[in-house]
C-alpha cells in the first residue's frame, strides 16, 4: 500500500509541518490543563486505592478516623480515578485528536479552561464530600448531590466545543477516531443526565433504579471511556509506525457494531438479581455480540502492527498503546464470557469482577492514555521527555503491577465464588483464604503507584522545560540495530 505514494516536495512538507505545529500550539493551554489535572486525580486516586486495599487485609489500619473508613475511601478512589483521571485524560486526548483530525486550530480556549475548571471543582467537592460522609450509595454515582451540576455544565461545554471544532474542519474525511470521539461526547452527557434524573432528581421505583444504575455503570466504560481509548489507539498506532490501518473498512464496521451492541451490555451486572429475566438475557446476547467489534479492532490493530513490533523497543507511546490495545481484546473477550449466566454463578459478587474491572479501566484505557500522553505532550510543549529511565520505570511498574493485580484477584475471585457456592464451607474460611491474595493486590497497587509517581515527575519536568528541545532528533533508549535504523530514520528527521 505504502509503495504507491509519491514523495512530497520539500515545500509541501514544510507547509504541512507549519500547519501541524500551529494546530498543536493552539491546543497547548487547554490540553495540558486537562492532562495535568488528570494526573493529579490519578495520584490522589492511587493513594486512596492503596489505603482501601490495605484495609481489606489489615482491618485495623487507620481505624481512628471516620473520614478514612473503607466505605468512604473506596468510593472516593472510584470517583478520583474513574471520574477524575479517566474522564479528564480522555477529554485531553479527545480535544487534541479532534483538532488534529479536523486540521483545525483550537477555538474558544477560554471555554475549555472554564469547562476543565468546573470539572476540577466538581471533583474536589466529590472526593472531599465523600470523605466527609456526603457520598451516596449508588455505585459509579457515589458523588454527593451538589457535584452533578458542575460535571453536567462542564461536559455540555466540552461536547459543544467538539461540534464547534468539527464544523471548522479543513480535512474532508471523518477519520474513524473522530467517529469514536463524537460518539463518546454525544452519548456520555445524555447517559449521565438521564441517570442522575432517574435515580436522584425524580427517583424511579426500586428495580428501575437498579436497572438505570447499571445501564450507567457499564456504559460509562463502554460508551465514554472505550470509544476514546479505542479511537486514540486507531490514531496512534498507524501514526507512530507510519503505516495506515490494516483494514479501514473493518474499523468502520467495528465502530458501528459497537454503537449497536454495547448499550445492551449493562444488565449483565444484574444477572441473578431481581430484574425480569428477559432483560438480563437480552443483555447477555448484546454482550456476546460484542465479539464482533472487539474482533474487528483486534484484527486491525494486530495486522497494522505486524512487521513493526521491533519498534516497541524504542517508542514509549507505542509500547503503552499496544499494551492497552492488546488488553482491550483480552478484557472484552473476558467480559463477554462473564455475561453468561452459568459463569456468573461463580464469578459474580467476587474479586473476579474487581480484577476484570481493573483490567479494563487500567490495563486497557489507562495504558492507552499513557501512550497518548507520551506522544502528545512533547508535541505541545516542544520538549522531549526528561528521562528514558523514568519512562522505563513507569512502564514496568504499571505493566507488572496490573498483571499481578489481575492474576491474583482473578484466581482469588474464582475460588472465592466456588467456596461461597458450597454450603459446607464456613464463611470464615472464605475470608482467610482471600487474605494473601488481597495482600498481593496491595503490593501491586503500590507498584502501580510508583509508576504513577515516575510519570508525574516526568510531566512536571516536561512542563518546567527540563527536557531537550524537540527537533534535534531523538536518541533511542536502546541503540537500534542497523535494520531498524532505516525504519526509524523518519523519526530522526522530525
Amino acid at each position: 500500500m505504502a509503495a504507491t505514494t509519491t514523495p512530497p516536495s520539500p515545500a509541501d512538507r514544510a507547509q504541512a509541518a507549519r500547519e501541524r505545529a500551529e494546530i498543536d500550539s493552539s491546543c497547548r493551554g487547554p490540553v495540558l490543563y486537562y492532562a495535568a489535572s488528570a494526573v493529579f486525580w490519578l495520584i490522589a486516586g492511587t493513594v486512596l486505592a492503596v489505603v482501601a486495599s490495605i484495609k481489606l487485609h489489615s482491618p485495623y489500619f487507620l481505624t481512628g478516623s471516620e473520614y478514612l473508613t473503607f466505605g468512604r475511601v473506596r468510593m472516593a478512589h472510584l470517583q478520583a480515578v474513574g471520574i477524575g483521571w479517566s474522564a479528564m485524560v480522555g477529554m485531553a486526548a479527545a480535544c487534541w485528536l479532534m483538532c488534529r483530525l479536523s486540521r483545525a486550530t483550537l477555538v474558544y480556549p477560554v471555554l475549555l479552561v472554564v469547562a476543565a475548571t468546573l470539572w476540577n471543582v466538581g471533583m474536589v467537592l466529590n472526593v472531599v464530600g465523600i470523605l466527609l460522609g456526603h457520598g451516596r450509595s449508588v455505585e459509579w454515582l457515589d458523588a454527593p448531590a451538589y457535584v452533578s451540576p458542575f460535571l453536567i455544565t462542564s461536559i455540555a461545554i466540552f461536547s459543544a466545543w467538539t461540534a464547534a471544532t468539527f464544523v471548522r474542519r479543513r480535512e474532508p474525511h471523518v477519520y474513524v477516531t473522530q467517529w469514536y470521539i463524537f460518539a463518546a461526547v454525544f452519548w456520555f452527557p445524555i447517559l449521565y443526565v438521564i441517570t442522575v434524573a432517574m435515580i436522584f432528581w425524580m427517583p424511579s421505583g426500586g428495580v428501575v433504579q437498579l436497572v438505570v444504575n447499571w445501564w450507567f455503570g457499564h456504559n460509562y466504560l463502554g460508551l465514554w471511556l472505550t470509544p476514546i481509548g479505542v479511537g486514540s489507539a486507531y490514531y496512534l498506532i498507524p501514526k507512530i509506525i507510519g503505516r495506515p490501518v490494516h483494514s479501514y473498512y473493518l474499523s468502520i464496521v467495528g465502530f458501528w457494531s459497537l454503537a449497536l451492541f454495547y448499550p445492551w451490555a449493562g444488565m449483565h451486572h444484574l444477572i441473578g438479581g431481581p430484574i425480569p429475566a428477559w432483560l438480563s438475557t437480552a443483555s447477555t446476547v448484546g454482550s456476546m455480540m460484542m465479539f464482533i467489534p472487539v474482533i474487528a479492532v483486534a484484527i486491525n490493530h494486530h495486522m497494522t502492527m505486524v512487521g513493526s513490533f521491533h519498534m516497541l523497543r524504542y517508542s514509549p507511546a507505542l509500547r503503552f498503546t499496544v499494551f492497552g490495545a492488546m488488553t482491550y481484546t483480552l478484557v472484552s473477550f473476558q467480559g463477554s464470557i462473564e455475561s453468561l449466566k452459568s459463569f456468573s454463578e461463580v464469578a459474580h459478587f467476587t474479586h473476579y469482577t474487581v480484577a476484570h474491572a481493573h483490567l479494563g479501566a487500567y490495563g486497557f484505557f489507562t495504558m492507552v492514555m499513557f501512550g497518548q500522553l507520551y506522544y502528545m505532550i512533547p508535541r505541545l510543549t516542544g520538549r522531549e521527555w526528561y528521562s528514558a529511565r523514568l519512562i522505563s520505570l513507569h512502564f514496568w511498574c504499571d505493566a507488572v503491577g496490573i498483571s499481578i493485580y489481575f492474576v491474583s484477584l482473578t484466581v482469588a475471585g474464582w475460588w472465592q465464588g466456588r467456596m461461597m457456592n458450597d454450603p459446607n464451607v464456613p464463611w470464615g474460611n472464605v475470608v482467610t483464604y482471600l487474605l494473601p491474595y488481597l495482600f498481593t493486590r496491595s503490593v501491586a497497587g503500590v507498584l502501580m503507584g510508583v509508576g504513577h509517581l515516575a510519570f508525574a515527575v516526568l510531566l512536571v519536568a516536561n512542563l518546567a522545560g527540563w527536557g531537550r528541545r524537540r527537533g534535534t532528533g531523538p536518541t533511542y533508549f536502546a541503540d537500534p540495530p542497523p535494520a531498524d535504523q532505516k525504519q526509524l530514520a523518519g523519526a530522526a528527521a522530525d
Partner: protein
Amino acid sequence: MTSTVIAIVVGSVVLFGAATVLAMGWAVRAGQFDNPSRDARSIFGPDEPVGEPTDAFPAD
C-alpha cells in the same frame, strides 16, 4: 411515575436511534465510506507521510 419512566425510555430510544440514523445517512451521502484505503491515509500528510515513523524512545 411509570409514565415518566416510559417517557424517558421511549424519548431516549427515539433520540439515540434518530441521531444514529441521521449520522450514518449523512456519512453515506457525503461519501465517507466510499474509498477506505484512501481514507485510512487521511491522518498522514506531506510532513508525516506513510512509511515514516513519527515517534521513538527519547534520550536519557
